[in-house]
């Protein structure tokens, strides 16, 4: 395996998912979004690692877990360039980059406390008006939720 030639800062896992290329500042957010705090199996993570592309990065390795597409969408909001690597028997089975969708349904809370989605029981709905510097326009109150004001439901 050419890829594991260099020294690993975080031990390899036998089966599960590796989430790589997370911005260093977003590692704990990803842990929270994926509810890994309450996860029963082994989770390895590291942050402020050197990265050729991003300067610094974080990585999370989750044993015996494959994620649903919807869960991966959530990650894209804080880690738009994260790679998702499926591991079986220490081998890379598949590798894909998360993609920020054009529309986000549920997941994120509208930051406007006076928005109907924070008053009535209904799912939030946003159009992604900026995928790089995440900006979400609420379908209902039309206000923009940014990375800074973003909270997850």
């Amino acid at each position, binding site marked *: 395996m050419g890829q594991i030639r260099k020294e690993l800062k975080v031990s390899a896992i036998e089966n599960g998912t590796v989430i790589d290329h997370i911005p260093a500042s977003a590692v704990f957010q990803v842990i929270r979004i994926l509810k890994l705090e309450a996860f029963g199996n082994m989770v390895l993570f590291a942050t402020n690692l050197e990265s050729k592309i991003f300067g610094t990065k974080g990585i999370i390795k989750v044993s015996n877990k494959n994620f649903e597409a919807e869960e991966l969408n959530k990650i894209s909001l804080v880690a738009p360039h994260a790679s998702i690597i499926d591991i079986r028997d220490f081998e890379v089975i598949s590798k894909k980059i998360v993609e920020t969708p054009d529309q986000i349904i549920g997941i994120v809370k509208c930051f*406007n406390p*006076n*928005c*109907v*989605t924070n*008053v*009535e*029981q*209904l799912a939030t709905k946003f159009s992604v008006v900026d995928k790089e510097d995440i900006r979400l326009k*609420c*379908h*209902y*109150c*039309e*206000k*923009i939720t940014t990375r800074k004001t973003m909270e997850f439901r």
Partner: protein
Amino acid sequence: MKNKSLVSINDYSKEEQLRILEVAQEFEKKPVQTILQDYVVASLFFEPSTRTRLSFESAVNRLGGKVIGFSEATNTSVKKGESLRDTILTIANYSDLIVMRNPVEGSARFASEISPVPIINAGDGANQHPTQTLLDLYSIQKTQGTLDNLHVALVGDLKYGRTVHSLVIAMCNFNTTFHLISPLELKLPSSVKMHIKEKNLSYFQYTEMNEVFSHADILYMTRIQRERFSDPLEFERIKNSYILHKDMIANTKDSFKVLHPLPRVNEIDIQVDSSEKAYYFEQALNGVYVRQALMALILGLR
């Protein structure tokens, strides 16, 4: 436009907006008709509003329709904790069209998605108030004979004023030149300016009311509210410099008109009222014709 809810001004195309203005002319000529005699319009005002509610109700009454509803939420099931979803689904059973004002932003969009009858947004918090925009367009068209290629000066609170935002966005369809006059703290937000830039239109920003009025066709005044200022001293400093006096409009074009969404407090001196360039009370009357046209089109009667 039949059965098409109106939540944001952009829900209707330029052509649809112009069609409403065209039909409004008909109602201006003949405001009393019986076309709504078999219809019930629900007027749900979850927060008080004088002009908008009365002008909608006047529009329905003059067309022979019936109005049901409430003018504030205090004595309704909403106070008992009923959800908006349940209120809308229930009242839709009793009416052919719902006109709603609600302080919760996005509530009109939500209502339009669950309601089996069309919804007209009569204001959802600081978000949208599209019928005000339509009556502003009607007033501009009527006084200028056209909506195209005009110089429109907007004065006052350009940051929080939803009527200003919707009007700017709507006027971007008509090659308008914008003159934006406001204190620095209350400048037009970039999210609205974006629409002007997308159409490559010219806009100029000023912090003082000045000689720009001599080129303007329309002056749209708004009120500056004390609570918008983080520094009360700043408000004291500027409050008197955004008041329109009669001498300031002396050298304007003959066709120049002063508009204001009302209510006015003191931002237009009452001496201006006697000028033939003051148009704000006629503007409020135009609201009846525009709302008659809108309801007639949504109910498929025009």
